[in-house]
């Protein structure tokens, strides 16, 4: 068994609101990843996916703060390290991220080449700075891989690019330094179908070329994850509720939420054509108080009185993890 390059132990994160209230956006997330693995994380909007990403990078930007738990990259913990240490030793080199919403991720007053050059310059070893020309050369080489109009894209401001070009530029910038691991936060949402395909193809091209090998792919589209991910984790109200191989989670979901989620999806498989998607009734609980009992109990069709009293912990069911005492 190969070495675990990324481990997350009982990670919890909270936002501190202006009135001193804590919003527990991520609670008790644990998982680990091997070199070359692709983990998919799915969950509905607001379940804490993007928040989890900040935690995984080891860089919580206020008002987000870590509550407890640990994140380790190749055995090295990211918690309780100084910001500048994380910045110069981890970010963009060991772990990089592709943020949600590429348009907003690009500084509107800088050209793509300048944004990219800033990233390279930020991680240059002291004493051997490259000239602007060398950096530009390097950018051209990298962007040529993406099958884009390199010169035009690099010399454009973000507003001058199409959504697809912006997304691909962001991916290009995020992977410039050949990071060991990439966390992609909904890289395809808000794109049209054909652009989505291009972007997915680009990400997998990069994987194939070995620019990076390990990836966490976040989306709210389960069918997509089924095609791209080795393992899938389902998130609900800040918790992982089910985690297993793609096959297990999509084809044979055990947690009632996963099952409901599969029901809510439009399936492309012909056998399920006739099935109408069913929306899940109700809304997830608000996270600014401590929640007793199962978080999904309010919306669960199979909930029993106990569910609202007993806080569920994640446990092995067969060879997958499920956070439901009644799952078999």
């Amino acid at each position, binding site marked *: 068994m190969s070495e675990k390059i990324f481990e997350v132990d009982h990670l919890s994160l909270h936002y501190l609101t202006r009135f001193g209230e804590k919003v527990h956006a991520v609670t008790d997330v644990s998982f680990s990843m091997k070199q070359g693995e692709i983990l998919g994380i799915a969950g509905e909007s607001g379940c804490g996916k993007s928040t989890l990403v*900040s935690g995984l*990078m080891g*860089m919580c*930007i206020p008002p987000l703060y870590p509550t407890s738990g640990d994140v380790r990259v190749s055995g090295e913990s990211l918690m309780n390290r100084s910001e*500048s240490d*994380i*910045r*110069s030793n*981890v*970010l*963009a*080199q060991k772990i*990089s*991220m592709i*943020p*949600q*919403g590429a348009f*907003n*991720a*690009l*500084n*509107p*007053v*800088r*050209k793509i080449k300048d944004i990219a050059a*800033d*990233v390279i310059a*930020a*991680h240059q070893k002291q004493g051997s700075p490259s000239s602007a020309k060398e950096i530009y050369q390097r950018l051209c080489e990298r962007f040529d891989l993406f099958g884009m109009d390199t010169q035009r894209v690099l010399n454009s*401001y973000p*507003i*001058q690019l199409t959504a697809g070009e912006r997304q691909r530029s*962001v991916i290009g*910038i*995020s992977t410039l330094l050949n990071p060991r691991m990439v966390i992609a936060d909904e890289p395809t949402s808000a794109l049209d179908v054909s652009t989505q395909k291009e972007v997915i193809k680009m990400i997998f091209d990069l994987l194939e070329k070995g620019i990076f090998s390990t990836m966490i792919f976040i989306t709210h589209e389960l069918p997509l994850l089924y095609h791209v991910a080795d393992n899938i984790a389902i998130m609900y109200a800040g918790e992982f509720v089910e985690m297993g191989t793609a096959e297990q989670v999509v084809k044979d979901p055990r947690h009632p939420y996963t099952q409901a989620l599969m029901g809510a999806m439009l399936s492309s498989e012909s056998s399920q054509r006739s099935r109408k998607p069913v929306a899940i009734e109700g809304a997830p609980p608000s996270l600014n108080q401590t929640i007793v009992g199962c978080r999904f109990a309010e919306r669960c069709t199979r909930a029993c009185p106990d569910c609202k009293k007993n806080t569920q912990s994640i446990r092995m069911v067969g060879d997958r993890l499920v956070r439901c005492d009644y799952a078999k």
Partner: protein
Amino acid sequence: MLKQYPTILYVLQKGLWYFLTFIAAIVINFALPRLGDNNPVDIIMGKAAQGLSQEEAKQKKASLLASFGMAELSTRTYDTVGYECALNEKGEAYLKEAFVPAIKVTERKIKDSAGADSVVNDTVGIFEPKLDASGAVMKEAASDSAGKPILDSAGVPVMKNVMQPVMVKKIIHIEKGSVVYSTTPVLENGNPVLKEEPVLSSSVVQFFAYIKNIFHGDLGLSYSQYPKPVIEIIKESLPWTLAIQFPTLMLGWIVGNLLGAIAAYKRGIFDKVFFPLAMLLNGIPFFVFGMLLVAAFSISLGWLPAMGAYGFDQVPSFSWEFYKSVGLHYILPFFSIFPILLSGQATGMRSMSIYELGTDYMKYAKWMGLREGKIVSYIFRNAMLPQLTGLAQSLGAMVGGALITEMIFSYPGLGMAMLTAIQQNDYATIQGCTLMISICVLVANFSVDILIALCDPRVKAGIQVGGK
């Protein structure tokens, strides 16, 4: 052909709009004192006629009307012509060779009608023209010229040389026509009287006269400091206003923005002390703060002068003493504006920066491991763009807004000049000052517009996309 240069096109377009605005400002400036049945001269005369005899008042009104370009002038012009010597390269009056023909005078004695004794006796001789002292041919010599020129064998008149300096005609001065009066019979106390009224020109003519005057820098004569031209008053006061306002504004803007950005980024104790202080200062009106400064540093402590731009015993000159005096007089007005301006900018910049800090691209920059300095520069640059608009506004308001500061410190700037003019119904000066203010507002806004276009690629790219 300008299509290839969208930036130039943009500047030209902007410039055109500002020019139109300028014209609009002129129109307003022109129309305001003429609203209803008013005209600027009548308003001035209301005060100027005091203590003048009827004839003097009439003359004063006529001269005012003429200087405002408001009355019909008689078209006759009286020009005085003078003569002066032309000079050659050596600076000597040079002489023209005038050739005066030699004249043959024939005298003939004719027989009288009786035909008794008179015999014809022809005398033929060469008549020498008589010259006067300056060497010019005297008239009488030519006047009794029954004579004819003597011709030589070729039939060309025989000439005599006369050396005479060349004279150049020069128009010394053209007197403008006087104001035209119309006379109308009216009944006064039941008696028919002839009333003389100056004929006013049409408003279109008045308007063009006004514009022509403006573009010649002729803003009329001040009435309160008659006969000083308004442009002189502006030339004397505007530099003081600019000297006190411009550096204060720029410094306040730059320092305020820096402090605001730092407060937003660092937070912590600096922000906790700085922000409430800035809010407090921001809430104090200029004049209250100015008066507090005067009370503290000038009246109680007596450290700094609070009146005028330089000491009463000083005469403007390029001396060290004078500069020192100006410097000392500069401190209080400067500090009456600077902290308030600074805190206004800083609070604005602070909230802009906090907003910038929360944007996705700042988070992305952080997540990509950019250094702190780089991120602060990102924040500063992006948050500064909206602040530029604020700069345009305060630069524009600078000239007019200086009034209160100048009043408190009796600073001899444009605001004071305008205030004095308003108190004395000095319309020409008021108009001149407001025009100056509009020009400053427009120039400031135009420059900042261009600056924004150069700094903000969202605008710049917009120009490029739109220009294609």
